[in-house]
């Protein structure tokens, strides 16, 4: 019992020291209270984890501000308002027109304050990024964002093959071959590991630019470009090999006749056969 108590005291002291080193305790929320909350959270969420390691992974100063706000500290709200209100409004304006953006931003701020939604922030990201996610979520829920979702079906892939300029011979046999080829493309895409699949989906399905992808994937533009290029090459190789192996001679001839350099276009069409659901005005 003594050893457990000693370990707890040591852990408590370590968390206190960490908080004191990292956080500028400028509100009525004291180091002790904040440390208590952190320890409580670790026991709730990550029972087996060391509290110090857990706390080290957090944006403690942002969490301190959010916690103080959630406790109704006026000074904390003043700082929060100064640091984040403009960002919330500006971020909302990325999705919406001025009036609608103001409505959404006001609603978010009201939620954060009245419903103490700030309590939901857990410090795993910066407060700013979390607020960005909150605004995005609110804008989508308000039905103001164009939804793009993939309906990857054989017909769509087949049509995309057709549209991409694949060799078109209006015969039943070739029609069946194209269907089989579409299946190959779909399977090759399905066999990708999730990371690569996500990369392709963000690029082709969601239509993000490399610049936009760097903001959410924390990878440089050059690296993303290289990865996409390598992915396209790998896919080409896989599809070609499978086509040669699985399809019969005539189909193999069709595959050979296909211009594989156009696979990028095909992928774009295959992954980008989007169902656009537009609710309300505006859009991203």
């Amino acid at each position: 019992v003594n050893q457990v108590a000693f370990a707890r005291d040591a852990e408590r002291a370590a968390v206190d020291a960490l908080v004191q080193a990292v956080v500028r305790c400028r509100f009525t929320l004291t180091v002790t209270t904040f440390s208590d909350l952190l320890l409580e959270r670790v026991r709730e969420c990550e029972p087996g984890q060391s509290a110090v390691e857990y706390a080290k992974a957090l944006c403690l100063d942002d969490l301190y501000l959010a916690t103080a706000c959630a406790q109704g500290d006026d000074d904390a709200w003043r700082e929060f308002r100064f640091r984040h209100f403009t960002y919330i409004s500006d971020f909302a304006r990325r999705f919406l027109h001025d009036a609608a953006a103001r409505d959404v931003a006001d609603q978010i701020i009201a939620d954060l304050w009245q419903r103490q939604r700030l309590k939901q922030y857990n410090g795993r990201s910066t407060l700013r990024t979390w607020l960005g996610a909150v605004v995005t979520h609110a804008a989508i829920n308000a039905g103001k964002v164009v939804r793009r979702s993939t309906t990857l079906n054989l017909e769509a892939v087949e049509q995309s093959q057709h549209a991409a300029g694949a060799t078109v011979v209006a015969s039943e046999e070739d029609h069946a071959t194209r269907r089989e080829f579409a299946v190959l493309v779909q399977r090759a895409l399905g066999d990708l590991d999730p990371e690569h699949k996500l990369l392709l989906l963000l690029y082709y399905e969601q239509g993000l630019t490399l610049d936009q992808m760097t903001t959410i994937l924390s990878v440089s533009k050059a690296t993303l470009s290289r990865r996409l290029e390598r992915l396209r090459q790998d896919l080409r190789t896989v599809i070609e090999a499978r086509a040669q192996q699985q399809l019969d001679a005539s189909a193999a001839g069709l595959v050979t006749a296909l211009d594989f350099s156009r696979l990028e276009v095909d992928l774009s069409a295959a992954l980008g056969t989007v169902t656009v659901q537009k609710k309300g005005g505006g859009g991203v």
Partner: protein
Amino acid sequence: VSKAGVAVHPDLNAIAAFVDDRLAHAERVVVVQHLSECAECRVMLAAFGRAQAAFPSRPHESVGLTRRLRAPATWLLLAATVTIATSVGLLVSRGGSEADRVLSNGRPPQPEVPSAAPTAAVSPPLSATAPETRSTPAPKPLPPAADDLTTRRSGVRQLGGKTFRLVAGEWVDSDYDPLSLLPVETVSASTRASLLDRMPELKPYAALGPNVLVVHRGVVYRFSSS
């Protein structure tokens, strides 16, 4: 991410942590797996990416910076730079000590070797020096007076437990961190007196000069001469 075998969407904290690249490897794998399968979450992530890319300062950059700072190569480079800068600074500081003495004492520097024995300056054997010079050791240089030039040269002041550095004509509190985005209150010459009446504890800092930046109770006060 899954409860009782039913896949649920990652919450906003997880999405934000993914964007900030702060998830542990195992957590990231789960989130990526979900994102690659869930169109709804991808829509949200893509919308976030589009909006975020439009901002000049993006959170991932600061995260990236933090990560870059964690890299050993970066630290080695930084350490080397600091060492070189310190060495150069010391050399410059020593080289300028004569000028300091002129300015602080108001008299020309005394040659360590009498002018009567100019050759001794080249190779100063003890026997060649004048007897009075040997008997009375050369006076130590006086500590530089805190006149304006010296202040600017040293560029560091300790005041009330705070350290101020002179940067581009402004005394900047070392506690100031632009990335912390604290509220900034600009105090012009006209409002200076009223603020100091209201907050007399800032008077010593404001007395440092016309342009002072001090962090006090979570607020950055920027005293400006304009």
